[in-house]
């Protein structure tokens, strides 16, 4: 199992070497695609198509996701951006009739190759959903769930504290770790879900519209968090909120809908993928320009 996917060291394990934070510079405003492309590729997606029951949902997407960046997928509804993000941790496997065609490589290893266990993929690649979905258990048990299913019994206290600190939730909940998670506010629940994902020591965090069910203050907290977390994790975020993409993302991919020639079928396609600043100031595709300037969508 472990041979199938490349090893990544556990960032929450005190014995493992810590990340040299100086090595990873913040992405400065005005960073170009070329600057980002110098980083390691976490994902390489090649000519990826997804169909549900034979009906194409997403066609021919190719892009790379770089380490320690925030990559945003934007686009109108129905453009397949949520379908796309679910290919990175094989969550589409859970949908009956879904077929994924093409290549999704994670550190050079094809995630859809024969013999790759989706359960192992999901441990390495964490996910946060649109609607906060804490388990109906205590705050502590929510964070400890991931490590526990992997068989960890010792050191859970430290792991829970570390994860909650990373998710900027520790100070708010440290005195009531045994209380039910459903008693937290929506924004706190979402940060708990982020802490829960971090507890399994992933190196990628997928976020599917993580703030769309939250109020502006809670949204700002999540965005700040994404900014902090990208120093240690690679973040991929789907958002329908263009300002959010502009605020948090280093790279932005714009997806759109293409209508088939017969006028019946429609599917999502990748229109343009570039550094966020470029996407929002001088996009090279007319469709991107129309979308980011609010003329469409």
């Amino acid at each position, binding site marked *: 199992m472990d041979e199938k996917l490349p090893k990544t060291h556990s960032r929450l394990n005190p014995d493992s070497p810590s990340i040299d934070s100086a090595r990873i510079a913040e992405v400065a405003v005005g960073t170009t695609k070329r600057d980002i492309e110098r980083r390691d590729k976490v994902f390489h997606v090649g000519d990826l198509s997804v169909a549900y029951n034979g009906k194409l949902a997403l066609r021919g997407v190719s892009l790379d996701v770089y380490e320690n960046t925030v990559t945003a997928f934007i686009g109108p509804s129905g453009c397949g951006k949520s379908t796309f993000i679910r290919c990175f941790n094989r969550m589409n496997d859970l949908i*009956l009739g879904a077929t994924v065609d093409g290549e999704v490589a994670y550190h050079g290893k094809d995630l859809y190759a024969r013999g790759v266990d989706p359960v192992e993929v999901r*441990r390495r690649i*964490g996910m946060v959903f649109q609607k906060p*979905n804490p*388990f*109906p258990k205590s705050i502590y048990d929510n964070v400890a*769930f991931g490590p526990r*299913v992997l068989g960890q019994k010792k050191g859970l206290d430290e792991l829970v504290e570390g994860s909650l600190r990373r998710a900027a939730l520790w100070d708010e909940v440290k005195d009531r770790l045994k209380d039910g998670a459903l008693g937290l506010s929506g924004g706190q629940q979402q940060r708990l879900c982020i802490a*829960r994902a971090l507890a399994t020591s992933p190196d990628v965090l997928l976020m599917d519209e993580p703030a769309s069910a939250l109020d502006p203050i809670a949204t700002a907290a999540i965005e700040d968090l994404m900014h902090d977390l990208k120093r240690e994790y690679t973040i991929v975020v789907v958002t329908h909120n263009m300002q959010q993409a502009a605020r948090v993302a280093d790279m932005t991919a714009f997806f759109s809908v293409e209508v088939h020639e017969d006028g019946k079928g429609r599917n999502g396609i990748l229109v343009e993928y570039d550094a966020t600043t470029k996407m929002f100031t001088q996009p090279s595709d007319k469709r991107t320009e129309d979308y980011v300037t609010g003329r469409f969508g």
Partner: protein
Amino acid sequence: MSRKVKGRIFVGAMVFCLAVSFGTLGWLLVTTFIDGIPGLTGKLFTDPPSTQPEEAGARPAILATIYLAVLLLMMTVPIGVATAIYLEEYAHKERWYNRLLELNIQNLAAVPAIVYGILGLAFVVRGPLGIGRVLLAGAIILTLVVLPTLIISSREAIRAVPDSIRQGGLALGATQWQVIWRQVLPASIPGIATGSILALSRAVGETAPLLLIGALQYVAFDPTVLGAFTALPVQIYTWIKFPNPGFQTLAAAAIIVLLAIVLTMNAIAIFLRNRFRQTW
């Protein structure tokens, strides 16, 4: 006729219907209690039946009913919950065999209990299993009677757990079984427990299938799992047939005992439902 009058007539009709059902229930309870209270003596719980009403008790029947209930729980809950988990979590809902299974379970829930009695007589008492007219045979048949209901209520409870919980668990690298065992089942236990107890209380009151497979009408010894047996409803039925009014009193007293058992179980079910109710 004005609209208001129509409304009042409608409300009146509903109150009347309510009164009919509650009145019947109340009348039954009151007459049973009046007839049965004199029979509610210690003897009823400690002594075996006798030809003399003053000497008779229902100890073997009460014990057998308790044994039946325990055996029933041991057999129905694992089978019923496992079936429900399969149908809800694993079954490919469009495969023909799963749809056939589902349709059959729904049909089986509507089959009269006596039909299960006939089946039991042919397959459990005689035939392939051939274990004879023993308490275990009665428990197996009652299991068949309540299993469909239990499966249906367990499925409802499992379905009530939102998908976001399953996805959340799987996204953390849990296996499907870990998600079921650690998230879905704990969250659906109140519903499953309620369904199990209600099914059990239905089974405890069943008479026809037990009569059919030959529960004895006179048992003077404590029951064993692999021995001849009677049960409270069968004992009540037996006593009521006797002309001696002393036995009528005993029958009424035994009905009160049976009612107490069933109502206690229902109360536990309601308690569980309220205590562990989950809001998402």
